[in-house]
């Protein structure tokens, strides 16, 4: 599954990263813009 940062458009690809988005720590932030997890939506 893929998740997109609603602020900057960065896409987190679970397959490529090998870690489910839900399993990322709560303080994980978008590597592109620093937005928190809640700014991501599944696409």
């Amino acid at each position, binding site marked *: 599954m893929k998740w997109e940062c*609603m*602020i*900057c458009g960065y896409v987190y690809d679970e397959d490529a990263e090998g870690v489910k988005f839900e399993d990322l720590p709560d303080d994980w932030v978008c590597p*592109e*813009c*620093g*937005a*928190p997890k809640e*700014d991501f*939506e599944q696409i």
Partner: protein
Amino acid sequence: MVCIEITPNIYWNGLNDRTSDLFEGIWPITKEGVSYNSYIIADEKVALIDLVKGIKTDDFLSQIEEVVDPATVDYVIINHMEPDHTGMIKTMQKIAPQVTFVGSERTKQMLDKFYHLNTNFKVVKTGDTIELGTHILEFYDIPFVHWPETIATYERTSKILFPCDAFGGYGALGGSIFADEYEDLDFYKEEALRYYSNIIAKFSRFTLKAINLLKELDIRIIAPSHGLIWRNPKEIIDLYERWARYGTEPESAEEGVTFLYASMYGNTEKLMGAVAQGLSQEGIPVKIFDVARTHVSYILPYLWKYRGVVIGSPTYEAKLFPPMAYVLDIATSKRVINKEVIRFGSYGWSGGAQRDLEPRLDKLKWNLLEFFEWQGGPTLEDFQKGEELGKRFAQHLKNFN
């Protein structure tokens, strides 16, 4: 205009744009205009802070000439590389080939891609300084206010902050460049909120971060690159902080309703009046927009600040009326999330607007409390239902916190 001295040897050197119809190619400024502010610091070394859009080149250069020979400029600080502030960059480089452009690492990379210049470039990051003589520039990374590369510049001696897009607004400058010289700031404050909701709102979290970082500085004057200069910086900082909080703390939104409607043949419009009456009777501020006739730029500030939204839309080819869908699309991309909502609308045969709306509301995280649909023209009973709907919604909003 002519250059205007802000503090000894620091000048405003901006341009008023009263002829462009659209800012960023989308936001109307035909009536309001906009300014691109640039600043000159004429010390032992000469620095320009931000340039302007690539219009009125001669005017811009003539203004610099009132203070210094443009060929002798030592530094051009690129706080933000969006072309409304860098449009003049090639001209500057031709006139002053020795000039050193200053910005973040990201600006260096982006500048190259946008303008393909071979220039002197000095990379700065938070805390770095450049001494011009008695004036000392300090730099602060403020990413995503407005683009990822953005920095703010603070001048230590005069205590002026140059934050580029942050604390800016639409509205060409009138008789003064200083906010404190206006009898009435309503126009500029309204245009600052429209600008905030159109341009900055999506990056509210970053805006708050930037405000917290910059608040540590002893700021006497805020000199943004659009709109007025604030010699009472708290006034504009407080406004921006409030607007940014609407984005990060939805409970801080104002009690009020953005009332969006559209109607092909008047059936939905008829109920609009009834619902609005219900709301107004309960004393809730209501701002009504015919979405087919109002540019979304003017709707966004209300959507941004008010907690409530009413959506009055008929069915059109089994979906929402397209201008309504457009407003919701823009609200989605601007991250205008967390609103309380009701909807009403007429349909002709099997409807479909409601089905189209619901997934859109999910994306927006807007909470739909009730909706009311009827076939064709509203009956007297429907009018009553509309008014009751408005009243219930008003009560819900009043009891919200």
